[in-house]
């Protein structure tokens, strides 16, 4: 069982190091085979001959690329809206488009998803309208979470997407427990949850994988290894070369995939979903990178080099997918220009519509505490509303 130092050293290249970590920045996706990272296409959109091309129709492929571009456009807009003071806060998802959209595509719409906080892509894949997303970003009353939650902390039961409760990783055992419940009830529902490299350090990750190993619920754990947890590099998060191998400690099937390869993410997630009823859980480490700031309160120059970010640029999931489509004759500059124009127009409309919506009424703070509020809450509600009235 003892691991030989050599193999430890070998794959260490995958680790992000803090600013003075010394190693010259390189993108691990360039050494995918050596690092055991599954791929369909390379940086140029050529087939690498590892995983087979998934059978998606030309229309599906085009639609998927269009979705990723829309998701990227939302991130650009969210950023400028926050910088111009119109949105309170923004959590970027730039660079993570492939993981979110492709993994969601691999699941059926009545499967459940437990979300993190960078997931407009996942919401859109489940048909949530743009206007609803922006209403949430603007904290307006008329969206499923009633304006109660931070921008981008989303969920919608109609889309079978459970919103997180803000603590990173805490929802991983919730997803596992829900999957276990479906198994107990004899339902066919399957479950997907996303969490980050940092989240694996929490006890919840341990609890979820340990219970999953013993009880084999139909859940797919996707660890988005995007290199950083705020300012903390993966090298300070854990001593293992990969996050996938942690699954071995629980008897959980696990593998690494190129998180910036939309086709590979789709392929391995679909396979994990198909195996779930029989084999139980899978742990998929999606090797990707947080191209943007952690949040609008962050300053990456304090902890990571621009060279490191630059090394990832050519591996942008949008660029790679576009090249792949172009090589298959499914895309050209005209369609690209037209797509961006449509995204801008749709987002403009959503922003305009959402900003015109009203904020929640103070009385609604007291709703949804219990199915039926207690007399204590009703008394507090009456008094607070009176006091606010009198201002």
């Amino acid at each position, binding site marked *: 069982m003892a691991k030989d130092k050599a193999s430890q050293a070998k794959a260490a290249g995958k680790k992000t190091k803090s600013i003075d970590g010394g190693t010259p920045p390189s993108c691990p996706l360039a050494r995918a085979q050596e690092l055991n990272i599954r791929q369909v296409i390379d940086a140029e959109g050529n087939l690498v001959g590892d995983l087979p091309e998934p059978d998606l129709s030309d229309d599906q492929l085009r639609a998927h690329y269009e979705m990723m571009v829309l998701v990227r456009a939302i991130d650009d807009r969210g950023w400028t809206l926050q910088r111009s003071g119109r949105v309170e806060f923004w959590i970027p998802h730039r660079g993570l488009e492939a993981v979110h959209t492709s993994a969601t595509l691999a699941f059926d719409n009545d499967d459940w998803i437990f979300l993190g906080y960078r997931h407009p892509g996942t919401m859109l894949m489940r048909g949530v309208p743009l206007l609803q997303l922006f209403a949430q970003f603007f904290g307006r009353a008329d969206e499923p979470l009633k304006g109660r939650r931070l921008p981008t902390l989303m969920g*919608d039961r109609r889309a079978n997407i459970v919103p997180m409760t803000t603590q990173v990783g*805490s929802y991983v*055992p919730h997803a596992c427990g829900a999957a276990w419940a479906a198994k107990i009830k004899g339902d066919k529902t399957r479950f997907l949850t996303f969490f980050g490299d940092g989240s694996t350090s929490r006890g919840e990750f341990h609890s979820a994988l340990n219970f999953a190993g013993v009880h084999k619920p139909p859940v797919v754990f996707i660890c988005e290894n995007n290199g950083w947890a705020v300012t903390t590099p993966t090298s300070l998060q854990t001593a293992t070369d990969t996050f996938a191998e942690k699954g071995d400690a629980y008897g959980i099937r696990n593998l690494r995939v190129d998180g910036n390869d939309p086709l590979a993410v789709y392929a391995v997630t679909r396979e994990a979903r198909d195996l779930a009823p029989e084999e139980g859980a899978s742990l998929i480490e999606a090797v990707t990178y947080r191209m943007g700031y952690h949040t609008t309160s962050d300053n990456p120059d304090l902890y990571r080099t621009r060279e490191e970010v630059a090394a990832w640029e050519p591996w942008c999931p949008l660029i790679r997918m576009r090249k792949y489509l172009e090589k298959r004759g499914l895309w050209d500059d005209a369609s690209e220009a037209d797509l961006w124009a449509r995204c801008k127009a749709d987002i403009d409309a959503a922003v305009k519509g959402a900003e015109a919506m009203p904020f929640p009424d103070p009385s609604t703070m007291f709703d949804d505490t219990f199915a039926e509020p207690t007399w204590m809450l009703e008394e507090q509600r009456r008094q607070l509303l009176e006091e606010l009235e009198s201002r």
Partner: protein
Amino acid sequence: MVAIESKPRKATVLEAINAAMAHALETDPDVVLMGQDVGKAGGIFRTSTGLSQRIGSKRVIDTPLDEKGIVAHAVGMALYGLKPIVEIQFSGFIHDAFEHIMFCAARYRWASGGQYSCPMVIRAPSFGGIKGGFWHSQSVEAYYVHHGGVKILCPSTPEDAYRMMIAAVQDPDPVLLVEPVPLYRAMSAEFVHDGKPTDIGRAEVVRAGADVTILTYGVMRPQSISAAEDLAEEGIDTEVIDLRTLIPYDIETILASVQKTGRVVIVHEAPLSLGFGAEMAAVLQEKAFGYLHTPIQRVAAPDVPYHFSIGDECYKPDAHRIKLAVRRAMEFEF
């Protein structure tokens, strides 16, 4: 044992809990019981004796040794539509699950805009009296009041244990069921095992009295009653109210009594500072200010851990200390 009965029969608190869980498991396929050692062996207190044999290990689940994981998985089960009954082996081991009870289970409904909820029962075998030392003798209920989101039920009779368990399982939100370990086998009482729930939020006037009101719950109920009986001989007519549920508490019954007696003694085994008695005193000195003849007295354990070798005798409040507090409430001069 059958699920529904029509004739009364005797049961201890422990048998009542077992019967209520059996009823819930047999009548609702969405109910599961999970925790450490709750299966084949029936739990370390044997409260679930026979259930895994009757229901099967799919719904009566021996979990890994991980309180956080147990509660967190139950939260997920509840989100999906099951009604988990979670046994924490001793309330002193519940703290690892604090975040998942108070800031997950208790908050999913609100945080999801009312789209999701977590109906679940968390069983916390509580209180000292079995020479267990600090971690096996804890009173933890007060931690689940601040910030809200959890209902708190404290049975101390067999029938209450039965009907509160039924009510807790049927409740649409998370319920903390504070089980009185020292009373598990202390008494046996007759009631009809008819599967009927108690009405959450009602206190019980255990003993009517005109001079002073004792507010108590859980394991301190018997102590309070015996104190009241002794005090009667001194000519002090004590009303004893078992709060039964802390959240929500029964303000009408409490206020009616306090307005009548004008004297209040709050009794719990939990430590004094920010024990539930603090909230009672704060609320009553406001809502019944004009009625109070004397300061509200609190009888509680001190703010130190429960001592193994002398805790049952010296740390845990008893009838003697309750009587002293009642006399203070009667005699206070300023």
